């Protein structure tokens, strides 16, 4: 990203607190900052209640941040009312106007811009083509399937060619097969229109497959931002390691330059990932993926196998290493002699351990 390019969206130090029904308050967003590159597909990922939807709504203008600033192409928008922002939203419940046809729904936003009638018709047609719903303009939302309704919601938001398109868990109501199809659709749409997409989801597979960048949220803060591969392979915090894919978390015993897994032994130098932070007394949680935990059978295995199940072509095993349970996954072909109740030896694939912050 060159220094000249202004990011499409910049969030700076945004905080938002909500009152709870019991009379207390909950901090939905805590000093959140994020840059979204122009023309990119950004995914906000996290468990429910982590603040990702709140941030989306602040960007849309449906909520007002208590502190901080949001800039669109360098200009402040957090003080601009929702109906004036060049940002449009696809709602989780689609929120289609039930008393209007599909075409009228899509035309609504264009009418708000006071465009001439023929131009509106043209744009509505184009939007329908874009989401592959040509010919359904005269139907009412109630007459459409869930997947079709979702595409209408998309078309309606895209018709205005906003600077940024916000999507609030758009695929959560769809069944699995439809969801996969729509993931590809959304990716295609984003690349075709070159509009900056910001999508909120709690589904990490979705985030990994669609996003150019993923921002992982936890309890009102961003734990990590980066391309999906990075976030998966190089988690920086315990939360990210645990939330994305599966991870084993090991509490290490650190003595000076040496770090050891309790009950296993000192960690060899090559087991560490090259860009992992150093193990210190203060930072001694290490993450390792199950596919990087290698089990071998044979005499002298120190560790009891709590469970060993063969699923597909892989062995999924749970091993007790010095009191900590480790998950391991490896091809069945390399797992002769490993069974529940037996014993095994554990090694770590080179470059697979990394220290994660708390």
């Amino acid at each position: 990203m060159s220094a000249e390019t202004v990011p499409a969206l910049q969030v700076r130090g945004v905080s938002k607190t909500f009152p709870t029904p019991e009379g207390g308050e909950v901090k939905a967003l805590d000093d959140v900052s994020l840059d979204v590159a122009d023309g990119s597909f950004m995914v906000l990922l996290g468990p429910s209640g982590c603040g990702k939807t709140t941030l989306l709504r602040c960007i849309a203008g449906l909520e007002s941040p208590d502190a901080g600033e949001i800039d669109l192409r360098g200009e402040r928008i957090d003080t601009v009312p929702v109906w004036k922002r060049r940002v449009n939203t696809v709602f989780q419940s689609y929120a289609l106007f039930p008393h209007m046809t599909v075409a009228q729904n899509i035309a609504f936003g264009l009418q708000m811009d006071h465009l001439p009638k023929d131009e509106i018709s043209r744009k509505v047609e184009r939007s329908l083509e874009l989401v592959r719903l040509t010919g359904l303009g005269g139907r009412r939302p109630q007459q459409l399937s869930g997947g079709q309704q979702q595409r209408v919601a998309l078309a309606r938001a895209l018709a205005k060619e906003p600077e940024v398109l916000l999507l609030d868990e758009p695929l959560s109501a769809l069944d699995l097969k439809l969801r996969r199809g729509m993931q590809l659709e959304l990716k295609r749409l984003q690349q075709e229109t070159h509009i900056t997409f910001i999508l909120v989801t709690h589904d990490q597979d979705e985030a990994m497959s669609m996003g150019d960048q993923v921002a992982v949220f936890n309890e009102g803060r961003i734990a990590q931002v980066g391309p999906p591969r990075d976030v998966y392979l190089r988690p920086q915090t315990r939360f990210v390691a645990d939330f994305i894919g599966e991870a084993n978390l090991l509490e290490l015993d650190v003595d000076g330059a040496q770090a050891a897994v309790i009950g296993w032994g000192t960690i060899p130098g090559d087991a560490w990932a090259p860009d992992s932070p150093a193990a210190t007394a203060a930072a001694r949680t290490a993450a390792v993926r199950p596919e990087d935990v290698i089990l071998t059978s044979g005499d002298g295995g120190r560790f009891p196998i709590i469970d060993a199940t063969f699923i597909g072509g892989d062995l999924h095993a749970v091993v007790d290493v010095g009191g900590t349970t480790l998950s391991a996954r490896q091809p069945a072909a390399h797992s002769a002699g490993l069974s529940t109740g037996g014993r095994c030896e554990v090694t770590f694939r080179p470059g697979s351990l990394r220290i994660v912050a708390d």
Partner: protein
Amino acid sequence: MKTPRGTGTSLKNFPLFGTMAVAVFSFLYVPLLFVVGYSFNSNRVVTVWKGFSLEWYADVLGNDDIQRAVINSLRIASISTVLSVIFATGLAIGLLRMARAGSTIAWSLIMAPLVIPEIVFAIGTLALFVQIQFPLGVDAITLAHTAFCIPFALLPIRARLRSVDLSVYEAAADLGANEWVIFRRITLPLLAPGIVAGALLAFIISLDDFIVSYFLTGAGGTTLPVYIFGMIRNAITPGVNALSTLLLVVSVIIVSISYIIARRKR
């Protein structure tokens, strides 16, 4: 699997309930049918049947006083309906946005005319108008009816409002609509069936009202129910039956329309 002891083939049929239901339905409708039936009685003595005749309808419809009373009733009902629906729509929207304390107070105020015995409401408004020296008559009745009709208009409107997905308003704002545009193009059209139902209910309530109209009647002539009351009190002429039947028929038609509309929009 034990079979239940007792009569009736289905578990859902309790003994005699069906019979009693029919009896109660009859009890609800037969008295009205008597009124309708006697309206065609050619005998002057109301309750002794002599023969079929439409003379009382002709009598009643040609009567000047009655015509004036009908016009008064229609005028009052129309204006009360329009006003109460406008107030009720505003209240429905406002109630949704009020916090606990405010909405409880508002609800008490709205429901008050229904909870307070009508006689108290009637003499209360009488005292009010006398106190502020507002002339009694059609206008006074209209104002009182409006207050009374608000709760009836409100309930269908509010039911309709609550059935709308709240995100729809956010979506409209997101697409560029300000508050007024949202009200005009989203809220009102979505509320329309509820507003129509509420209007019909308010209209009937006003049309049928007796006690409030009775106390607020002024020099300009009375309303239809008050006129009928006078007829009953002074001397029961068969014309009363004809007039009552007409009022009955109008009420039933309006309620049926309201019911059909409600069923269609579902």
